[in-house]
């Protein structure tokens, strides 16, 4: 897996969403550049701490794998701790950067170089990028720092959503606590371009890309944009096909397709669990049976129930929770019986079912 890029690696960005936190203004005088000896010292320190970052990145990957499966979002996941040679390269490149101060790096390198622990999440359908990023936000705490959540769509062609998460939940192993991990979310087509252009731009080995290479890179960019469009169209067509079919929705992914077609937007929440609930309660489970359940009305009802009984704002209630709460009058007893038997960490869906059917 290639090196993850940090924000500042990427040059000027057009951010489509507001940055969630701000960076305090520094009044310190301009710091001295890092010396080669200092860089060596920091890399040496990093080598000793690398296992922690590797563990943190793997923890993030494993949690996201579980959550994405629950949400029925097909994705590729990988994680890594930055290679010491890449840390060395980066420190040399940033030697004059005011944020890369010797004392700060020694005190907590991870809070300066925020991509030493990294996880990459690649979705097939570009429309699922925001849903996947939303899952990252709901699964972990965002680090309270500048640019902890950015949707990048750069002039260079780079597209991805970057999130900085901090491992601060009670179930996190003590050795990994407070580690910051960078999560990059992108589509598989964008990933191809991002990787190729990164290798050419940042690992040029003193060979500047020729006009020919730049033109071909532009061709790759166009091809990947087209691939994104084609994949999105394919997913839409498949959703319409499933929606109009009387075939059973045998997988959570098929259920997602059918529901998204019914409500005409991406669906958020634990689709895997929703599929289990509906499969137990309705037969045959088809797009037609979803129409019989009136998904639209159930969502509206569910949000009302959440407001009245759970005192939750709409923004805090995902679609699956709202839908299930909206169906409680029909299936409340069954849902309660099932949810009370679910093992593993208590989720928003389980809590909502048990609370509302109490």
């Amino acid at each position, binding site marked *: 897996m290639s090196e993850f890029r940090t924000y500042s690696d990427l040059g000027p960005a057009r951010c489509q969403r507001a940055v969630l936190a701000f960076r305090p203004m520094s009044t310190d005088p301009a710091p001295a550049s890092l010396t080669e000896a200092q860089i060596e010292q920091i890399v040496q320190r990093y080598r000793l701490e690398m296992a922690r970052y590797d563990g943190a990145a793997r923890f993030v990957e494993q949690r996201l794998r579980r959550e994405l499966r629950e949400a029925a979002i097909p994705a590729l996941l990988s994680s890594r701790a930055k290679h010491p040679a890449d840390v060395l390269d980066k420190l040399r490149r940033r030697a004059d950067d005011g944020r890369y101060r010797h004392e700060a790096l020694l005190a907590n390198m991870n809070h300066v170089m925020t991509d030493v622990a990294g996880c990459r999440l690649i979705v097939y359908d570009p429309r699922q990028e925001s849903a996947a990023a939303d899952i990252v936000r709901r699964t972990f705490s965002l680090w309270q720092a500048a640019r902890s959540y950015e949707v990048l769509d750069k002039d260079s062609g780079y597209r991805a959503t970057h999130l900085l998460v901090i491992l601060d939940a009670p179930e996190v192993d003590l050795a990994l606590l407070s580690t910051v991990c960078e999560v990059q979310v992108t589509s598989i087509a964008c990933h191809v371009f991002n990787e190729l252009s990164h290798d050419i731009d940042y690992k040029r080995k003193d060979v500047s890309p020729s006009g020919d290479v730049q033109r071909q890179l532009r061709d790759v960019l166009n091809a990947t944009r087209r691939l994104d469009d084609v994949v999105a169209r394919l997913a839409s067509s498949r959703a319409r096909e499933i929606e109009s079919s009387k075939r059973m929705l*045998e997988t959570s992914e098929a259920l997602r397709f059918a529901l998204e077609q019914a409500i005409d937007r991406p669906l958020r929440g634990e689709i895997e669990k929703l599929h*289990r*609930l509906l*499969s*137990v*309660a*309705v*037969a*045959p*489970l*088809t797009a*037609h*049976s979803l129409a*019989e*359940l009136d998904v639209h009305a159930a969502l509206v009802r569910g949000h009302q129930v959440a407001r009245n009984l759970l005192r939750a704002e709409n923004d805090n209630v995902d679609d699956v929770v709202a839908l299930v709460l909206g169906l409680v009058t*029909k299936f409340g*007893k*069954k849902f309660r*019986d*099932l949810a009370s*038997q679910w093992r593993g960490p208590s989720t928003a869906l389980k809590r909502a079912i048990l609370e509302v059917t109490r």
Partner: protein
Amino acid sequence: MTASRLLTLTELVEGLERDGEEYFVLDVFAWHVQELRDVFEHGRLGELQRLDLEQPDRAWFGFRRNGTDYQIKVHRSGMAQITRRAAGRLELASDQLAQGRLDPEVVRQTEFPGMLLGFLIGEPLSAAPHASRHVLTMRYNEDENRWRAYDGPQAVWIRNHALKIEPAFA
């Protein structure tokens, strides 16, 4: 892997009546029911009464619990259907019933889950023709001695077996 015990007719009735009259039919694997095994293995009817006197080999029986009459039919696929005798709306054709003993291959196939499963069928979701129905996949919890809703990996298995033989889902 097999379940450590078998279901009884009493437990089948508890399953069917779990939510009052919300469900009409309970499907279970016939090989998991003690009284049906007694019939198939030893020809012992016990409290079961044959309902088709003209074709006594057919697996179609009646019995009574708490003042209510029930009927139980065994499909050739190894599924047993229990309904209230008067209100049972989902009927099997006579030639679909198991005859004599259960086919050993059918028995082998229905031994697999290692748990006692049931599938309840109730009202349609809407008045539309061929509307989906309220159903419930259940597992008999041997520790608690009661039926619980079940959404584990074998739920698909019992559901698919049950749907195949239900005229309502034809």
